[in-house]
């Protein structure tokens, strides 16, 4: 099905927001002004956006430690997220969560997660809730090739099949679990989808560096899982991580020229532009205009985050039922 001009512009804008959000963090983190650990999503934008463009606020997602892209794609506020990562009181989680713990339940975003593999069981619960409600909503868990080795993921896949949860396991294979290669850490040295298949799920595969591949694949997956009684499904997207596991990672595990090569040939943003301009769906001017708008929005978000109120010592004790 052909996307409308507005849909194309929105999808591109979402990917570009994630890209520039992360590129800007990559720079600002080096100044030392941002505290803590940050894991950037650059390179994988087509997956988050290609999945979330199909979803409403009633569909739930559970994210990972590399969660900025999922949050933004699911509709979390750019300013609120930037302020959160800067540790502001005005951040989406009042500065209590930080990069790895951003959530916005009203938007169906049930949380990024600092524990690799912890999200899948939570998504199964949300998928059971969706099944009980019977309105065709779904719950999606994003996992990487790291989380696919956690026992929690295995438990969750089986539990989803057993309970016929309206749940989708989206595996983003970026070929690195932290600093260890997929070929080493995934014992089968095959894909991840075949594991899900072994648990009894219908599976799909797609190119995670191509928005249209993700988007069209997800349409099929969602058409399947939204049918009451069909139960869960899984999909694996082959993708690329443009930065290290965390900011500051020296990435000595990369091959010579690898980063240049994937930035040149596997960049979902470049591919999108080439695809839509080549097909005459959008012009370079259309895309340039989005780019300018996004750059201004990120600049604005950073300025607001820097100026935003800092938390106070008293804030430590709020938002918990009791403190001693």
């Amino acid at each position, binding site marked *: 099905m052909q996307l409308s001009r507005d849909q194309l512009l929105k999808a591109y804008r979402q990917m570009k927001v994630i890209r520039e959000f992360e590129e800007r963090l990559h720079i600002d983190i080096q100044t030392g002004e941002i505290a803590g650990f940050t894991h950037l999503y650059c390179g994988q934008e087509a997956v988050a956006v290609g999945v979330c463009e199909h979803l409403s606020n009633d569909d739930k997602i*559970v994210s990972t430690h590399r969660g900025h892209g999922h949050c933004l794609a699911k509709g979390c506020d750019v300013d609120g997220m930037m302020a959160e990562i800067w540790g502001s009181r005005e951040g989406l989680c009042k500065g209590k969560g930080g990069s790895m713990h951003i959530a916005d339940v009203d938007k169906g975003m049930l*949380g990024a997660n600092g*524990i690799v593999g912890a999200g899948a069981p*939570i998504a199964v619960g*949300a998928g059971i*809730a*969706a099944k*009980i409600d019977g309105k065709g909503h779904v719950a999606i868990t994003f996992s990487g090739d790291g989380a696919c080795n956690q026992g929690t993921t295995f438990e969750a896949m089986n*539990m989803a099949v057993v309970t016929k949860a309206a749940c989708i396991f989206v595996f983003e294979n970026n070929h690195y679990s932290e600093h260890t290669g997929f070929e080493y850490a995934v014992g089968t040295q095959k894909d991840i989808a075949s594991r899900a298949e072994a648990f009894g799920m219908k599976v799909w595969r797609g190119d995670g560096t191509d928005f249209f591949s993700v988007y069209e694949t997800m349409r099929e997956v969602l058409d399947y899982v939204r049918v009451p009684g069909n139960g869960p499904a899984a999909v694996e997207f082959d993708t690329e991580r443009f930065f290290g596991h965390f900011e500051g990672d020296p990435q000595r595990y990369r091959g010579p020229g690898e980063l240049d090569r994937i930035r040149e040939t596997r960049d979902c943003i470049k591919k999108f532009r080439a695809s839509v301009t080549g097909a005459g769906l959008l012009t370079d001017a259309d895309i340039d205009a989005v780019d300018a708008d996004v750059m201004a929005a990120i600049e604005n978000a950073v300025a607001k985050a820097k100026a935003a109120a800092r938390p106070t010592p008293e804030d430590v004790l709020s938002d*918990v039922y009791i403190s001693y």
Partner: protein
Amino acid sequence: MARMMYREAVLSTIAEEMERDENVVVLGEDVVGGNGTAGGPEAIGGIWSTSTGLYGKFGGDRVIDTPISESAIVGAAAGLALSGKRPVAELMFADFIGVSLDQIWNQIGKFRYMFGGKTKCPAVIRMAWGAGFNAAAQHSQAVHQMLTGMPGLKVVMPSTPADVKGLLRTAIRDDDPVIFLEHKALYGVKGEVPDDKDFMIPFGHARLSRAGNDVTIVSTGLLLGFCEAVADKLAAEGIGCDVIDLRTTSPLDEEAILDSVEVTGRLVVVDEAPPRCSLANDICALVAEKAFASLKAPPLGVNPPHTPVPFARELETAYLPSIPKIEAAVRKVLSYR
């Protein structure tokens, strides 16, 4: 009032709350029991008989048999809770908490705070705990000492059928995650339970089960009854004991403890956890910090030794705090000069 067993109070409260609120769902291993067998669903109905009949009454969407996957059980409870349901998950044995600890400790207990207070996680995680069944080291443990130290969790330890009723209802209606610890040696104990289907006991309010001015005994769970027996025996000698049933270890009713110690000046805390970093240690420290001037004797904890729970009858008996051990401790603080 109705007379019922502790286990019946669990089951009837869950059933009443499921009746009242369609968002209440039950999940766990064998909570239906018999699925996929010749016997069919409800061939068992929960190994503690705390979910018997729920499947027939409320159906498989709301009474969910799970595989033996404790992380996925608690994780699913988390996801259900974040999606507007009120899950009551059963872990069967508290000892299995180790398998699911990430979901309890890093997930459900932290959502509200980590996400800036905008998230509710109304999940109840029930589990049977405690020694007394010769179930040995991996099916007999106390876990409250560990869970009480985890911010964001409410930890409930009922000692009577009436408290099960009032506290479990509060737990199910609470918007925060609640760990509900049912002592397995109490499941068959009977007691009077209020009929009111809105009977609730607020968390953080201890119960004074015996009153006296000479010594304060703090406990909960199975050992509470042992403490009452000691108090009754000493009462015949003219020694008055305040026996405080904590009901919840977090939130903790500090006021009830401190008020009592300010009168008695003597404290014994009877706890089923091993001594180091235990509830007994915690409450003795609390009293030392906040009621030091009232103390007439050093506060004393009565705990099992720092060992795994042993199997053989003689060993388990020697392991657990007993009525004679509690009595000896009380007499020791009374005789301190």
